[in-house]
């Protein structure tokens, strides 16, 4: 085996030995990292899921353009032509005032008499705009704003309030998740750095001897970084397992018609090797940064 590999193997064995020596502490720290990553993962999954639901629903809701009573046919045709040339518009259906009244009467026969009492049909003519499903909420709002600028347009509705609530919730989840994640990550770093500090304290004699026999700071630090990384890797692995289990349990529920608001919607964020790697890597990174905070302080002494 080449010399650098011996060196690495020796340092790795030292890191493993340190974890074994403080196994209970390492497991507790690893579980803390797991909880942090699990919560971050759940926040991220729910946030992405809501975003997808919002995207899908707004595509289904489409857009309705209500025309003013004094909208001239030329104005209407100009708007129709403009809409039909927009790439994000899949189709446009026209509804005249008379068709609107007929539909109203059909849907609400009990109120048909009321409509008949009125001298003038109060229902406006409209254009029902079917949007491309991939269109974002922001793009829909932008399109609606442009349509509102056309002469003869009275109002544009595209489920903005409902979408705004849903997107607000997903934004809140993103902000809340990021804040909670940052706090949890800080707490985790604090715990990891304390674990390493304890480990350093337990091995201070060994470190003194290492210094006396000519060990460089890098040589002394490496096993501690490995200890942090291994602990974090364990935490990331546990978080990945728990998230995979959650995905497996909750995913089918969301896909069933009884799944409530989100029933029949898209599946939870797909959970695969990439997610496991991100969680394990994140755990290892948390472990190493916590270690850095602690050992950096120690090495300054």
């Amino acid at each position, binding site marked *: 085996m080449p010399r650098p590999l011996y060196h690495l193997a020796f340092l790795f064995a030292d890191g493993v030995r340190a974890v074994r020596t403080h196994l209970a502490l390492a497991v507790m720290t690893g579980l803390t990292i797991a909880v942090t990553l699990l919560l971050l993962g759940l926040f991220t999954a729910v946030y992405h899921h809501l975003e997808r639901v919002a995207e899908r629903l707004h595509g289904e809701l489409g857009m309705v353009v209500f025309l003013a009573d004094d909208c001239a046919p030329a104005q209407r045709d100009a708007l129709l032509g403009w809409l039909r040339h927009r790439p994000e518009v899949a189709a446009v259906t026209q509804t005249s005032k008379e068709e609107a009244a007929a539909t109203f009467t059909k849907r609400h026969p009990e109120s048909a008499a009321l409509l008949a009492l009125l001298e003038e049909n109060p229902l406006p003519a409209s254009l029902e705009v079917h949007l491309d499903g991939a269109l974002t909420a922001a793009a829909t709002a932008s399109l609606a704003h442009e349509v509102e600028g056309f002469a003869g347009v009275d109002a544009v509705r595209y489920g903005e309030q409902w979408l705004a609530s849903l997107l607000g919730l997903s934004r809140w989840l993103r902000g809340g998740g990021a804040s909670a994640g940052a706090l949890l990550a800080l707490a985790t770093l604090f715990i990891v750095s304390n674990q390493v500090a304890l480990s350093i304290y337990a091995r201070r004699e060994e470190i003194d001897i290492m210094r*006396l026999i000519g060990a460089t700071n890098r040589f002394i630090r490496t096993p501690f970084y490995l200890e942090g990384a291994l602990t974090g890797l364990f935490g990331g692995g546990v978080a990945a397992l728990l998230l995979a289990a959650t995905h497996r349990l909750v995913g089918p529920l969301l896909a069933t018609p009884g799944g409530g608001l989100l029933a029949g919607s898209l599946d939870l964020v797909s959970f695969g090797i990439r997610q496991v790697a991100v969680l394990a890597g994140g755990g290892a990174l948390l472990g190493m940064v916590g270690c850095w905070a602690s050992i950096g302080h120690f090495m300054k002494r």
Partner: protein
Amino acid sequence: MIVFDHVTKDFGHGQPVLRDLSFHIEPGELSFLIGRSGAGKTTLLRLIYGAERPDSGTIRVASRDVSRLRPGSVPYLRRNIGIIFQDSKLLASRTVAGNLLFALQVAGIGGRAAKNRVDELLERVGMAGRAADWPAELSGGEQQRVAIARALANDPALILADEATGNLDPDVREEILTLFDAINQAGTTILFATHDMDVVREMRKRVLTLVGGEMVSDRPPELEAAYR
């Protein structure tokens, strides 16, 4: 091998610990540094292996100025100096071989070469066949032998011993001193700090005497023999 040129070290607690010390030790010498507790022996050794810096003066070890050494260079200096303490400082969590392998690994020696070197070192200090023992299973003298083997791991040109026989019975002490003598005969420079005059009398070597941080005498071996 070691040159002190007007070296002063002051920790700021009143009097300097070492005052205007000047001496030199030739390669291959075995010298004793004597003085009572607090005379400055340990500080002098710490200056040599870069654990402290002098406030003034220059220290050269193997022609290298160690008084202004960058912190990053100190480990490389120490790989050429074997240091032995009174309490042996073996790692209780490692076997005899593990302690030696650890020192070799620090110097970048691993694998079969390191294992062969461990056998060779244990043979040299009279501990062959004890590689698998734990430090707690060894007597004080045996632990000190292993500490000497560890100090020799990198084949250093200089060995610093700080009260290395302080905890040992007279018989064991004599064995350890004989071992130091053999190492010196093989060409290694040794500076042995002690407050035990029996050690000095047994060995009949050059003696540097520190009192209150000052070098009050520097007697060569022949003169030291005459003092007996």
